């Protein structure tokens, strides 16, 4: 429907398809929390939760025996656990960036996907926050990282990036959790007033805090939403910068890089968007959300992935250039090992999956083909994990004194914990999809009205 008689809004593919109505949207959203899910859902959650349990079993074994059961050693004192932490924090950035930054830029297309994106943020952070707690040598003491008054009169060391980390990560998690819940309130109110089951009605009644959506409330609500959006943007940018400072402010060759903060933020957004694409590639068709999450949405998401991939490529280049231009033999050597060292494949995997593979998305047809976008974003997710592996392990292996150079070999426990965290993430996601409104109905409804209006004006009803 691209003939010239149409109003501008309809000439490009609209953000909702088919003749959808406000009520129709509510019904779509509601059905998922009402009707019993398909068998496939049960199979999926069984698998994921078993994987998650495996992961937690491995963690239990590790806590009991000592972190010697991991591959960590000297000089490679940080291994999979820290990699996974950075990885999940990265994934966790999609939600905020999509629902917040795009909101500030008034990108209406983010409305349909923001809810699930925020959910991924929350769950990814749940995974991420496991790792700093369990990776310490005496895992019964990490609460010492929090500056609480104690009779020993001791405080934490505010110079340590790990303390910055504690503050950043905890803040980010609580804020994004709250942001997510805030967005849910009006939709929960809708569910409350439409659901059949009494139990659900009670629960939703409590969760929706008695929201009735009168004008004054909406006014405050939007104001708060705007403020949160602004603040959370700063937060999102600061958090991964701070995570990057764990490395950047150390003096390990390969870590000590001024480019790290922006480069980590972009990386986070990159892996985050890839993660969201991955989720929607399945959710969209599996949950019949085609009308609200249109090919155009996927197209736009993929454009973001493509854009960020190019920025990453630039970041890699600049990092390499810095290393070379610094004329610092130690750093130069480490960067050489990234791509020519014993584990050259790590470096090349990073570059291929993050910079080369996404170039496919230049072609509009590929941008809209589900298999391609799945391959690309899965590749990016893996690639970003490999990037963290390269930075953390390969740098530590080759630091200043050749006499202390070593190797790194992950153990089954390492793998179990990594895979288990993925299982945990998917389990949480599946539960969410099953029980809560997956689309921010109150945000999409105006769009529906808008497009309906356009249509009626254009006489296409």
């Amino acid at each position: 429907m691209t003939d010239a008689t149409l109003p501008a809004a309809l000439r490009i593919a609209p953000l909702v398809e088919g003749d959808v109505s406000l009520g129709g949207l509510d019904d779509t959203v509601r059905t998922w929390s009402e009707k019993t899910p398909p068998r496939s859902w049960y199979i999926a959650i069984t698998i994921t939760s078993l994987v998650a349990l495996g992961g937690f079993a491995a963690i239990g074994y590790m806590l009991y025996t000592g972190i010697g059961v991991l591959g960590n050693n000297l000089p490679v004192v940080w291994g999979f656990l820290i990699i996974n932490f950075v990885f999940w924090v990265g994934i966790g950035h999609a939600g905020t960036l999509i629902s917040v930054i795009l909101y500030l830029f008034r990108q209406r297309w983010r409305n349909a996907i923001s809810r699930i994106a925020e959910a991924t943020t929350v769950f990814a952070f749940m995974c991420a926050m496991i790792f700093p707690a369990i990776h310490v040598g005496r895992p019964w003491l990490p609460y010492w990282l929090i500056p609480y008054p104690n009779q020993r009169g001791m405080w934490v060391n505010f110079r340590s990036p790990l303390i910055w980390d504690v503050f950043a990560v905890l803040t980010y998690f609580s804020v994004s959790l709250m942001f997510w819940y805030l967005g849910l309130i009006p939709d929960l109110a809708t569910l409350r007033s439409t659901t059949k089951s009494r139990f659900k009605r009670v629960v939703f009644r409590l969760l929706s805090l008695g929201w009735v959506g009168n004008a004054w409330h909406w006014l405050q609500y939007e104001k708060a939403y705007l403020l949160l959006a602004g603040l959370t943007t700063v937060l999102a940018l600061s958090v991964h910068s701070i995570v990057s400072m764990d490395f950047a402010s150390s003096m390990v060759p390969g870590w000590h890089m001024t480019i790290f903060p922006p480069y980590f933020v972009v990386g986070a957004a990159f892996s985050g968007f890839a993660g969201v694409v991955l989720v929607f590639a399945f959710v969209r068709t599996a949950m019949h959300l085609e009308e609200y999450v249109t090919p155009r949405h996927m197209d736009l998401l993929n454009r973001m992935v493509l854009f960020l991939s190019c920025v990453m490529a630039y970041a890699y280049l600049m990092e390499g250039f810095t290393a070379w231009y610094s004329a610092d033999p130690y750093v130069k050597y480490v960067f050489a090992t990234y791509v020519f060292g014993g584990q050259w494949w790590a470096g090349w995997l990073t570059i291929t999956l993050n910079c080369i593979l996404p170039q496919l998305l230049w072609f509009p047809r590929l941008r809209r083909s589900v298999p391609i976008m799945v391959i690309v974003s899965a590749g990016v997710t893996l690639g970003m994990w490999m990037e963290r592996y390269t930075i953390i392990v390969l740098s530590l292996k080759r630091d200043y004194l050749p006499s202390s150079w070593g190797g790194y070999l992950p153990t089954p426990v390492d793998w179990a914990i990594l895979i288990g965290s993925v299982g945990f993430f998917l389990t949480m996601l599946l539960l969410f999809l099953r029980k809560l409104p997956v689309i921010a109905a109150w945000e999409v409804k105006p769009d529906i009205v808008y497009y309906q209006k356009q249509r009626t004006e254009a006489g296409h009803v």
Partner: protein
Amino acid sequence: MAEPRVTDADLQRPPTLPVEGDLVSRRRFLGLVGASAALAATAACEAPPADTIVPYTRKPDDVIPGVANYYASTYQEGVVAYGVLVKAREGRPIHIDGNDEHPVFRGKTSIRTQAEILGLYDPERLREPLVSGRSAGWDAADARIVPALRAAADARKPVLLLTPAVISPTRAAVIAELQKVVPGLRHVAWEPALGAGDQSASCFDPAVSPAYRFERASVIAAFDADFLGAMGNAVAAIGGFAQHRRPAGAGDAMSRLYAIESGMSLTGSKSDVRIPLRPSGAAPVAFAVAGALHTRHGRALPAGFAAELLAPFTLDAVASRYRLDGRALDALVDDLAAASKRSLVLAGPSLPPEAHAAVALLNAMLGTEGFTVDAAFAVDSPSVATPADMTQLARDLDAGTYAAAIIWDTNPSYDASGGGAFDAALARVPFKVRLALRADETADRCDVVLPVNHWLESWNDFEPSRDLLSLQQPLIRPLYDTRQGEEILLGWVKALGGRVTSDYRAYLMMRWERAVYRKGTPASFQKFWMTAVHDGVLRRDAEARPPRTVRADRIVDAARRVARAADPSGMELLIAPDIRLWDGRYANIGWLQELPEPVTKVTWGNVLALSPADAGRRRLNDGDLVTVTVGARSVTLPVLVQPGQAEGTACTALGFGRAGGVAEGQGVNVFPLVAADGSPPFWRAAVQLTRAAGRRPLARSQLEFSLHDRDVVRLWSLDEYARNAGPVGDDQPLATLNPPQDWPEHKWGMAIDLSACVGCAGCQIACQSENNIPVVGPEQVARGRIMHWLRNDVYYVGAEDNPQVAHEPMLCQQCDDAPCEPVCPVAATVHSEDGLNEQMYNRCIGVRYCAANCPYMVRRFNFFDYTSTMTDPLDLAFNPEVTVRPRGVMEKCTFCVQRIRNGVQVARDEGRPVADGDITPACAAACPADAIVFGDLKDPNSRVSKLARSDRGFKVLRELGTRPAITYMAELKNPVGAAVERIDD
């Protein structure tokens, strides 16, 4: 009579005992090697016991709880008697250093002696006599033995007494006593590590082993002689050698060391000129040098040695024959000629006798006798059996004439070469008695096994030289129901009707009063004895021997044999005692098993060292298994590709492959390869190497040996020194954002002279013993989790067929601007007011960020619970002044903070300032080369401050701005061409 365990009538059992004893005791010994995961599990969820205080009921005059005592004693290893000073806490030895009163050891001792602390507390020690495998009392044991001996005595049948070398006059006397009552007693002394004994001595008359005075040598030529490593008295050698390796400033000369050797030994790694040469070439080359000395420098040949004998050996001939660097050989000749009596030529015990003869010739020509080679007060060499003698002995035993065999300490079932021939023969002996510390290979074959005291539980005396007596006194009463070997023998003598006391201490004192104490001296014998025990040594005036005369006839024969010898071909194998396990007697000491071999850095096992060329030709890599076949015997060893190894040679070490305990399955026993047929025992020609299936990954503490052009260690030739003198650019202060730091009282610092350091690893064991550093076992070492706070890095510089080697002790640099400090989230590592980088174990939660951020990678982490699962009584070896770190805690060198605080407090109590030298960390105290100096950098006149200003001082990784408190001094090499230090008489 038995020495009861604790004989204090006034000590009653305290009313209640906490469960702590049970908590740590009765654990599998594995706890020591740290595979303690399962054990930690068994220890889980036990509430800690209530503390109980158990004071002395009557306090001994000389023990103050919490304050250490020091006892002088002596430890015998082979034919060396190490004078030691043992640190004891509350009547319990915990640390061993050298005896500072001892003229030879000057407060230093060997790594193996230090580690003997763990030997004392070894849980695998025998705790009571065994009669035919079952535990029994002493009476039961004597009831078996005494009649057997009596029967043998009556029947005039021979009885074998196999002991280590006897260098103790009183022990000899005791054996003589036994001989009186058992006429058929045949005493054989067996020291497997000594091989064919000191063969160079046999080329002189009288055939006594001299002391080598390295402190007088300006040119040293060592033919496969690892005098800084496993050969002879390395402690004294290092001390003397190091004196001429530390020029005070640019322009000063130093001694020059030529190492002509097959394997890369410690000595070779310190040498100025290293000439890789197969062992069979040693004799020809030495003769050629002698010839050149004669022809070019007109050195006289000894009477009876005709010049034409040297005709076949010309420098050019040997140089081309063995593909040697001719210029180096010329230089060697000239240097020797110039230094004459100030030179010293040595041949390693592994070399064939011809080489020793040639070297004896050189020493004779250079007139070193009486100067660098000092036999003035040498004792008559104790008779020690060679492997050939052991074969003969086996034949005798096999004849079945022997009524009984008494095997004391030595372990022939393990170390007698000849592939089990000795065992088979031993089986023919009707009655066998074993006196031993542990139930070992030999004990398994004996009818009666008697547990003997550890030397730290024993009395004895030794005569290292005729002007010196060295006393051994016990530090602690026997831990178990054991007796001292001499006492057991005396017991038998008494039982067989001899008129002696069976109290060895009384016997010892009696003999001293008779033989040593001179009547009419003002002091009473009591006082004389007490003083001797107190000092640990007794100097006596004995009249010097006349210089030895060289026995030309032997050298002539040797020269003839060598001249007839065929051209070298095939692989040659050189076997030597291991610097850690010696002949295997230390196999059960975890510290030594886990100590990285000083050059190869291999722990927990021995290897077959091959040259890169040979390995490349055979496509062998580190860890590949190779079967070494000599004649009928063969063993399978993992390969180590060793830079600097002479082509066509292979080297391996004795002492591994012991059975039982910690040693089980660690390394391979190569004694089967030792020649038992009169030919040189440790040198095997025509060796077959065949690749065996599989690999054995080596547990090495260092994996990368190349410097990658990084300025982390400085290896200078003397003229480079002259050029770079003055800490190069290091005097410019680095830019920093930090405010200047102030040190109110002290600023502790260290200076390490890499030129004096020979990399002997003495500091490592001292540190381990002082700081309760756990042993983690080969698996953990291979995983990169070794715990040594102080490691000795090795770097190869130059071509891999004959590289130069740099040793660098690496420990916490106590940086002023320590990178580890700001990154710790809980402030568990911070800086003290006196410049120490402190680690607070209790605050540490183990995020390991500090370790990641330490550019020196000297921090160590407890990945598992390595300590609390330790078996009783190993925990007694812990230093009570140092925290025992549990699982999950970061640790590192603290400059022995416990010693620093102690020194400061003592000074304060005595109301005086801390004097320079009051405080010495364990590593500095142990360093035989005095290469490590510790002190207060705030005092400009302290030794360390002066050294820190040295013109060859440098800081490792200075450019990072960490401002270390340790100054290293460049290692210097004295290559051909530079001046050689001149040493006055």
